[in-house]
């Protein structure tokens, strides 16, 4: 922007458009306790609902005695599957093409499953009554291990699918099998493996965890019997999809359903799915004619809604003796729990796991994924992730490290010689993706230089020598990661959720006095959309961001969109916003031409105005054009200044980054002290650097949690071992590391403003960086792979098993 005259610069700065670290407009209300989250909603006559949940992971329900519960003062009803069956609502479709019990229909399949929905006047009465419902269980054998679930004599979990050898994603080869999904060239890959100089093979497990936003899921459903309108407020990351599902399930026309996402206290993928609580709240409201509120408590949240990951990834990577990768093979066993409730685009039952060739030019590859039922909670959501990209990135970044060990090479150098080169973009990956743009070598060199990589390796060698000499009990680990993401789902031709193409939308109204209102199909859960989308529009239309109101999340007013998850808001809705802004500008240009009595083509755009070419003193500002749009009869033009854009992205976007973590590990206690964490992100054009940095801090902290301690584990009986914040690790300010952020900027060539999305990158790249650092600390003692989470005990155990405690 060096060619701007000072006047232009001043005007551009005043807009607070793209590239400015504009302070957030959301913050005034949040810092003063004036947010409006779903549990803050209070309505006249509102009643409450809560679940009786299964204590067992697998059991037949022989009877449910509700008499004592119904006798509690204030209790109105106790709903069971039989009450929902006449409406056809005792089961519901999942986003993955499976179906899920809303309330236990004869049996339960995981601990915490919903059995009955108690409705009453107060929360306390409902809680008391839930305790008094007596369920008669007949225990059945439990399977929590996906490999055992696929054994010949394994118990049948989904009796409702008996005899069905075909599922929504092809053949089922076993009664606990969900799907097999294959991509790439298996014979060619296996031929390469057979003839390779070097093959590294390992089982890489990405454990089960949970997004755990601080606000749990919940809703208020209100059926107005007079006008037949159903309104539901709730923690919905995709409100329009919820409306469509609600309509399909209930038969109520979409025009009579209003879904509202108020402020959302973090989502991270937890709030994409449709949960039994929503269905039961709707039914209870229809039955009672009163608004019904359902809010999960933390145990409900951790036990029943939306786990993430749980992928067993068996990998083989082939290379020449010099380290050039020649092929990649992966077979994944995907534990989906009791119902396949993944939130993936329909045609991708394992999400975008096929991005597992990562940042590397790998000529041939194969990926096979088998989805399996177990007696664990359903889900498989994209926890701060674009549909299994986190799993893919962890897999390839571990395989690279394991290959480096096998080749006895430096892992940074091994990455460098295999990166896709800048001149290879757009790049066709062996597993079918077209990477839009990238400059990996530049980013990598910048990162290595920034952390003084050579110096770190020298220090590590000294430390190791000291350790061996008995001078220290601490080891040093350097965790490298270069990730490539695939976000911005996605092109309607191959991406849909329940048949809805994954476009997104923006609708803009410019008011006569020059301020604006824009509505989008997405919904912020902390990303600051009200701030950043206004910045895009400010740059596109010349209206100051401070005069642009952004609204999202109300299906009665917002245009249809697929919502916010998978880092899709900026790539998809951001593009719609820019294009809608351009439509506004195109009409404004005709207005300006009329007012200035020149031809359209004689005008040029200058920050916030149209100027007659070569006559800078003759111009009309956007504000003037807006006024004219409403107060002048302009021949050939309709009054008003509005635009709408539905954007179908031609391709995904491929953000990337280079992360380096340095940690010191106490061999005797297993405590890992994160000394530094450097994160370089390339998310294309940067809209608000302050917000990008905040996203990186937050995502990296979630990565830190996942890699270093967070998990949802089950014992052999199917008891969930991490159902409170006592057992489920959320790091505090005390142990959370300090982050250094950096960037390069490689715009997406196909995106109207070149933006790629960033919210999930730090989680995708952070987990391998932390995990690789742990592994790296023990590399010289022969460690190749140890499963996450790397809590103190597991790190201690690595040291112990390597004989370092003698």
């Amino acid at each position: 922007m060096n060619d701007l005259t000072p006047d232009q610069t001043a005007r551009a700065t005043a807009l607070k458009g793209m590239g400015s670290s504009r302070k957030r407009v959301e913050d005034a209300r949040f810092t003063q306790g004036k947010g409006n989250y779903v549990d803050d909603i209070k309505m006249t006559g509102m009643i409450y609902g809560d679940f009786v949940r299964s204590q067992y992971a697998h059991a037949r329900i022989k009877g449910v005695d509700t008499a004592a519960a119904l006798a509690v003062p204030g209790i109105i009803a106790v709903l069971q599957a039989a009450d929902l069956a006449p409406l056809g609502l005792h089961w519901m479709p999942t986003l993955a093409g499976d179906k899920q019990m809303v309330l236990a229909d004869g049996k339960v399949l995981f601990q915490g499953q919903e059995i009955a929905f108690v409705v009453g006047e107060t929360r306390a009465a409902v809680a008391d009554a839930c305790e008094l419902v007596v369920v008669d269980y007949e225990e059945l054998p439990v399977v929590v291990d996906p490999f055992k679930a696929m054994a010949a004599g394994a118990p049948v979990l989904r009796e409702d699918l008996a005899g069905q050898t075909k599922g929504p994603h092809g053949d089922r080869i076993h009664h606990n099998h969900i799907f097999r999904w294959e991509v790439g060239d298996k014979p060619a890959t296996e031929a390469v493996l057979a003839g390779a100089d070097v093959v590294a093979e390992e089982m890489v497990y990405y454990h089960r965890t949970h997004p755990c936003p601080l606000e749990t899921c919940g809703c208020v459903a209100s059926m107005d019997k007079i006008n037949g309108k159903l309104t539901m407020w709730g923690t919905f990351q995709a409100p329009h999809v919820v409306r469509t599902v609600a309509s399909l399930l209930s038969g109520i026309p979409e025009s009579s359903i209003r879904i509202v996402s108020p402020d959302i206290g973090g989502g991270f993928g937890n709030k994409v799915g449709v949960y039994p609580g929503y269905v039961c709240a709707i039914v209870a409201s229809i039955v009672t004619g009163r608004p019904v509120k359902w809010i999960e408590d933390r145990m409900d949240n951790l036990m029943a809604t939306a786990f993430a990951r749980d992928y067993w990834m068996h990998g083989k990577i082939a290379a020449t003796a010099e380290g050039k990768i020649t092929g990649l093979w992966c077979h994944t066993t995907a534990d989906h729990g009791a119902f396949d409730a993944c939130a993936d685009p329909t045609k991708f039952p394992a999400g975008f796991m096929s991005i597992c060739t990562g940042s590397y030019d790998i000529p041939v590859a194969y990926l096979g994924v088998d989805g399996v039922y177990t007696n664990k909670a359903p889900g498989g959501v994209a926890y701060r992730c674009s549909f299994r990209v986190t799993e893919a990135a962890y897999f390839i970044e571990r395989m690279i490290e394991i290959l480096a060990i096998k080749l006895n090479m430096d892992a940074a150098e091994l990455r460098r010689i295999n990166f896709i080169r800048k001149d290879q973009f757009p790049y066709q990956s062996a597993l079918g993706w077209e990477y839009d743009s990238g400059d990996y070598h530049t980013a990598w060199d910048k990162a290595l230089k920034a952390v003084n990589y050579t110096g770190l390796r020298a220090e590590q060698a000294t430390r190791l020598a000291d350790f061996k000499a008995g001078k220290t009990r601490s080891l040093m680990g350097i965790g490298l990661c270069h990730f490539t993401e695939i976000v911005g789902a996605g092109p309607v031709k191959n991406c849909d959720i329940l048949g809805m193409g994954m476009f997104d939308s923006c609708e803009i109204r410019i008011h006569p006095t020059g301020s604006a209102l824009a509505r989008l199909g997405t919904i912020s859960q902390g990303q600051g959309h009200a701030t950043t989308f206004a910045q895009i529009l400010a740059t596109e239309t010349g209206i100051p961001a401070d005069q642009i109101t952004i609204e999202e999340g109300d299906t009665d007013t917002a245009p249809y969109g697929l919502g916010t998850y998978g880092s899709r808001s900026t790539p998809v809705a951001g593009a719609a916003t820019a294009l809608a802004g351009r439509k506004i500008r195109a009409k404004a240009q005709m207005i300006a031409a009329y007012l200035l009595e020149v031809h359209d083509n004689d005008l040029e755009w200058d920050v916030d105005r149209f100027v007659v070419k070569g006559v800078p003193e003759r111009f009309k500002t956007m504000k003037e054009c807006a006024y004219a749009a409403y107060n002048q009869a302009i021949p050939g033009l309709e009054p008003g200044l509005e635009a709408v854009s539905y954007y179908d992205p031609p391709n995904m976007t491929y953000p990337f980054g280079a992360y380096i973590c340095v940690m010191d590990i106490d061999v005797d206690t297993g405590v890992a002290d994160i000394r530094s964490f450097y994160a370089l992100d390339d998310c294309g054009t940067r809209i608000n650097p302050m917000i990008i940095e905040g996203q990186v801090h937050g995502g990296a902290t979630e990565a830190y949690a996942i890699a270093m301690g967070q998990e949802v584990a089950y014992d052999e009986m199917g008891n969930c071992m991490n159902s409170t914040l006592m057992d489920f690790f959320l790091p505090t300010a005390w142990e959370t590391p300090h982050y250094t952020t950096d960037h390069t900027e490689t715009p997406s060539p196909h995106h109207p403003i070149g933006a790629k999305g960033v919210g999930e990158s730090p989680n995708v790249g952070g987990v391998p960086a932390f995990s690789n650092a742990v592994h790296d600390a023990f590399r010289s003692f022969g460690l190749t792979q140890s499963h996450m989470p790397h809590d103190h005990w597991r790190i201690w155990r690595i040291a112990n098993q390597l004989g370092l405690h003698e």
Partner: protein
Amino acid sequence: MKKMHIELTVNGQPMETLAEPRELLVHVLRERLGLTGTHIGCETSHCGVCTVDMNGKSVKSCTVFAAQANGATITTIEGIAGADGMHILQSSFREHHGLQCGYCTPGMITRAWRLLQENPSPTEEEVRFGMAGNLCRCTGYQNIVKAILHAASEMSAKEAAE
């Protein structure tokens, strides 16, 4: 369960309500007194989003019974700002991007407000330790810590000037 009469001073205002003795303070504040700025994240005293100030100490209001709070002086997020607008901590959280979804923010600010009275010029370590009872899932804490440290120095400077 029989209700009891509870009297409190909340944000400088005398307030009274009927509540079951087993009711949690956070529910009394949110449901009976309509002060929904204080949130709920776990009800097991781990997350700190329910933090309020009770008789000069930070407490997790999900772990205080209504009966225990009877007669107490309480400050919630709604009472932090003064007549002259946002408290320095509030503007500092905004200035330094110390919040994203905002769900932890009321508890964070209310806790930081007490922390800075206990220790007006804390080090980064002291802030991190003093805030460890309040979880945030969005920010990674770095900007929260920054916001509190800036607020501390701004408040000291303001005090020195007065």
